[in-house]
């Protein structure tokens, strides 16, 4: 009987196996066979409003939906801007005080005017907010209580429509930025540049406050900013105070993406807000994709925008592709219509282990490399080169790496009485400490070689960064036989003695030098890092006291200039040296700006500041390079930071996911990528066949146990009857 049962079980398992294919697929099997990208997010975005969002996880989504006027060329290196919704790059005119045009080099330049000429074929995604009745009124502009009762998602609004992008949509976005209640992080910095924005912001914020009180919607269309002019439906000018060449980079960011007034008013309806249907969560853009599903607790789904304007995969000349070092396979699609991928599904994955295993099973198309998975994924050769492990190579996985335009450093508080100041002895103390911080060892131990030791504030890939001997910090390193060699401990000790601390003991007080390092690294995993930090200072006989604190207190101390030593970092907003050098500009010192300044080490050198004022409005040129070099040399000499690392990002992708090229600046890169769905489905089948023998074993165990248990029960029953319990 048991053999018969076993046969039935075997047949059942075989049947299930034959029909179900793989059992462990987390995705819809139909979608796996289409050009759908499966990706993940670990932290749900807090908001998807282009004037507010400022985090990489938010930009990764809205970058595909909204279209600012400019974008970065996907393939060209160094990074280069190109028109996105414009017919050509903005034309810049220079004006004097009276508004007359003057030459760019003129000393009378008071304003710069950016003229934006829009393409005439850019349309928004289909959306209910655009639907109008025969008399031109918005159908869903004012929803009644009865209508609202039946609306739980945007899909419940059956009608949708689209319209052309017009210049006033960009003006509307800038006006939205000006409304204080929208909390745009760049409003205060843009007020310094866009003419009339500050006055407009004050006025409109008052109006917004009143409207909110009286529960009225705020239509920004009737209001105007003096420096932002809509010439016609396809032309816009933005007037900037003085020269500000970096403004072009801002024009490639989502803050300047167009907002249709219909959508803004539609989403201001209180009934929709109560259902979490807001512009913050359901964007309306002209981009290659639209957000078809937004459940930040589970899944977000982008679907190709059927109204997307014509755009082709970039074409590079031979010279450009050689200069940019672009692999040949990335040029195959040159001139082809974008986008290639039809749908993108982001699923919430909070933990690294399931994420990594799903990637290995082929259920995610790409993955980062967490520290837990590093040894499984990557092997480092004897020459120090990084390559894929054999297991990854067998699966056809590809590794892409690039140095990020970021700087992580250990800052000295320059207003601190011990480590701060600009005297010779203070400089020598900081230089001595810098020499003994073995960043190469740090990179090897704590980052798995994912970074390069910094020589200054400017990371690779940004104008002003230099390689080789020219790019070496001669205060910390010697250039020996074509290589950087960190100066010896003897040199550091000599500097320390000259600073007044021979062997780490103060000449003045006779006490050992004790320094304080503030950190938020309080977990058990951080202990080894803190031990390593102490060890570096111990080389000089300096006692390092670790002051672990929570992030709020830490930030507070840094803002008030009360921390002595601390680690900090910066990711580039745009690829310009100004975006890094301003971290050392005296005018941005935290203590001088009530904690708002970005210069958290409070460094202030008049010569450095003077040069910064010059280079910040200059175009890239040999003269600018010369001045930047001077600034970096000044900073190296003063040593307000211990140059830390420029991190390297590593990403893995399956071989069916192609056209993948890391781009640290662009956010709208999904439209260039491709998926070979057939190969993916085949590999998923191959890698995930269910293993059935444990099921048979389990069934066998249960069957074999049932009889002894039955006998044991009978014997127990007999014992009870005998009164032997």
């Amino acid at each position, binding site marked *: 009987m048991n053999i018969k049962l076993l046969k039935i079980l075997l047949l059942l398992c075989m049947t299930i196996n034959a029909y179900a294919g793989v*059992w462990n697929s987390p995705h819809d099997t139909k979608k796996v066979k289409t050009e759908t990208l499966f990706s993940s997010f670990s932290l749900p975005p807090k908001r998807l409003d282009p004037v507010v969002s400022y985090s990489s996880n938010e930009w990764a989504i809205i970058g595909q939906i909204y279209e600012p006027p400019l974008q970065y060329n996907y393939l060209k290196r160094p990074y280069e801007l190109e028109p996105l919704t414009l017919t050509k790059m903005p034309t810049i005119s220079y004006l004097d005080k009276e508004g007359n045009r003057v030459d760019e080099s003129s000393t009378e330049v008071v304003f710069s005017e950016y003229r934006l000429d829009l393409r005439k074929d850019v349309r928004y995604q289909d959306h209910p907010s655009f639907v109008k009745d025969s008399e031109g009124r918005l159908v869903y502009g004012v929803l009644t209580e009865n209508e609202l009762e039946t609306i739980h998602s945007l899909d419940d609004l059956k009608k949708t429509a689209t319209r052309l992008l017009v210049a006033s949509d960009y003006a509307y976005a800038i006006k939205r930025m000006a409304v204080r209640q929208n909390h745009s*992080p760049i*409003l205060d910095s843009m007020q310094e540049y866009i003419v009339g924005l500050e006055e407009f912001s004050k006025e409109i914020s008052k109006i917004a406050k009143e409207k909110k009180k009286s529960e009225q919607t705020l239509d920004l269309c009737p209001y105007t900013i003096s420096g932002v002019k809509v010439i016609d439906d396809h032309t816009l000018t933005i007037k900037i105070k003085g020269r500000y060449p970096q403004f072009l980079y801002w024009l490639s960011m989502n803050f300047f993406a167009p907002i249709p007034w219909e959508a803004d008013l539609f989403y201001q309806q209180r009934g929709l807000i109560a259902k979490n249907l807001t512009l913050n969560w359901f964007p309306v853009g002209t981009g290659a994709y639209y957000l078809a599903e937004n459940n930040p607790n589970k899944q977000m789904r982008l679907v190709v925008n059927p109204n997307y304007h014509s755009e082709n995969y970039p074409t590079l000349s031979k010279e450009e592709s050689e200069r940019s070092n672009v692999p040949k396979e990335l040029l195959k699609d040159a001139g082809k219509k974008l986008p290639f991928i039809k749908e993108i599904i982001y*699923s919430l994955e909070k*933990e690294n282990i399931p994420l990594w295993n799903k990637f290995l099973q082929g259920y995610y198309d790409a993955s980062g490399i967490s520290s837990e998975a590093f040894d499984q994924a990557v092997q480092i050769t004897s020459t120090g080169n990084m390559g894929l492990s054999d297991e990854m190579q067998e699966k056809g996985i590809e590794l892409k790496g690039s140095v990020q335009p970021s700087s992580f450093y250990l800052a000295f508080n320059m207003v601190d009485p011990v480590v701060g100041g600009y005297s010779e002895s203070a400089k020598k103390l900081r230089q001595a400490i810098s020499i003994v911080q073995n960043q190469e060892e740090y990179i090897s131990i704590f980052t798995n070689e994912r970074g390069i030791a910094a020589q200054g504030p400017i990371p690779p890939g940004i104008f002003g960064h230099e390689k080789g001997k020219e790019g070496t910090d001669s205060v910390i390193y010697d250039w020996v036989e074509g290589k950087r060699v960190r100066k010896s401990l003897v040199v550091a000790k000599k500097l320390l003695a000259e600073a007044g601390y021979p062997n780490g003991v103060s000449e003045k007080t006779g006490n050992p030098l004790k320094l304080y390092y503030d950190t938020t690294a309080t977990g058990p995993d951080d202990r080894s890092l803190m031990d390593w930090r102490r060890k570096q200072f111990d080389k000089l006989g300096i006692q390092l006291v670790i002051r672990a604190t929570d992030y709020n207190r830490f930030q507070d101390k840094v803002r008030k200039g009360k921390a002595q030593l601390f680690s900090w970092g910066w990711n580039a907003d745009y690829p310009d040296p100004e975006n890094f050098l301003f971290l050392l500009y005296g005018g941005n010192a935290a203590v001088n700006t009530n904690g708002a300044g970005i210069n958290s080490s409070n460094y202030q050198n008049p010569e450095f500041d003077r040069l910064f004022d010059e280079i910040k409005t200059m175009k890239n040129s040999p003269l600018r390079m010369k001045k930047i070099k001077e600034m970096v040399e000044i900073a190296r000499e003063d040593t307000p930071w211990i140059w830390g690392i420029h991190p390297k990002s590593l990403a893995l992708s399956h071989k069916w996911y192609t056209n993948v090229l890391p781009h640290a600046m662009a956010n709208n890169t999904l439209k260039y990528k491709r998926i070979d769905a057939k190969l993916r489905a085949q590999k998923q089948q191959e890698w995930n066949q269910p293993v059935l023998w444990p099921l048979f074993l389990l069934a066998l165990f249960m069957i074999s146990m049932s009889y002894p248990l039955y006998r*044991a029960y009978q014997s127990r029953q007999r014992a009870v009857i005998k009164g032997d319990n």
Partner: protein
Amino acid sequence: MFAYIVRRILYAIPILIGVNLITFILFFMVNSPDDMARAQLGAKQVTPELIQSWKEDKGYDKPLFINSEAGGVSTVTNTLFVQESLKLFSFNFGFSDANRDIGSDIKERMVPSLAIALPTFMIALITNISLALLLVLFRGSALDTSMMIIAVMIMSVSGLFYIIAGQVLFSKIWHWVPISGYESGWSGIKFIILPVMIGVFAGIGSGVRWYRSIFLEQINQDYVRTARAKGLSELRVLFGHVLRNGMLPILTGVVVVIPTLFMGSLIMESFFGIPGLGSYTIDAINSQDFAIVKAMVFLGSVLYIVGLILTDISYTLFDPRVKLS
């Protein structure tokens, strides 16, 4: 009984005010409104003006408990504590600091939490009781001893180990179920199997030991002897009499847990990518979203109080001697 329930509900009001007060004090001891603004607005370009506008918009510009600038009753009522607490008592949780309606989010997240917690609870209850009765049946035998040793071993291992081991074994090596994920409806069953199985297994050690001790207390009672004397089989004695009489202590521990099932499990939901309520509070604490923290603490307290009232009521159902007055 009605009067008793009303009285218990009235007792709950000062408890909830107290819980809310403690939540306010503890939260604002660690986070200032400025810190909260920074956490919401990001690390870059956060100016004092931006922080001030955020505080005004969210109402965090008001004093916490005493508004000395407002005269009369407003000194107390025009404060953050009173304004926010009053809304809670009408179950209006308001909007999170990221501008999402908290009530809608709770409703949405409660379903996935329940989808895991309810089957885990039910299957675990049935399995643990059945196994405990089986061990009581074979009490003193090698089976009983070895099962007790296994139960202690199961209890001694961290739940996290079972999660990771389960994911590796059943999904990565044997490819039976997805490693993580969630779908609503019938198509979502494949995602639920593994977390439920792990949840049941992880609780088996403590559950079986506890129920076994309850049933062992009953097994030598006079009514059991009488039942046997009437010629009832051991299975009928155990399931018909011992189980029923052992229900009272079981109810004490079980009914109180039922309402809190809505709150989900943090680790389980994190590892299996289940969009439930388990991680909602922790995520809110990490992002310093006070609106969510106070709503979840309040909801947790309400559910716990409901659980206690339900326990009292259930006593009367299983033991006629107990009367609520």
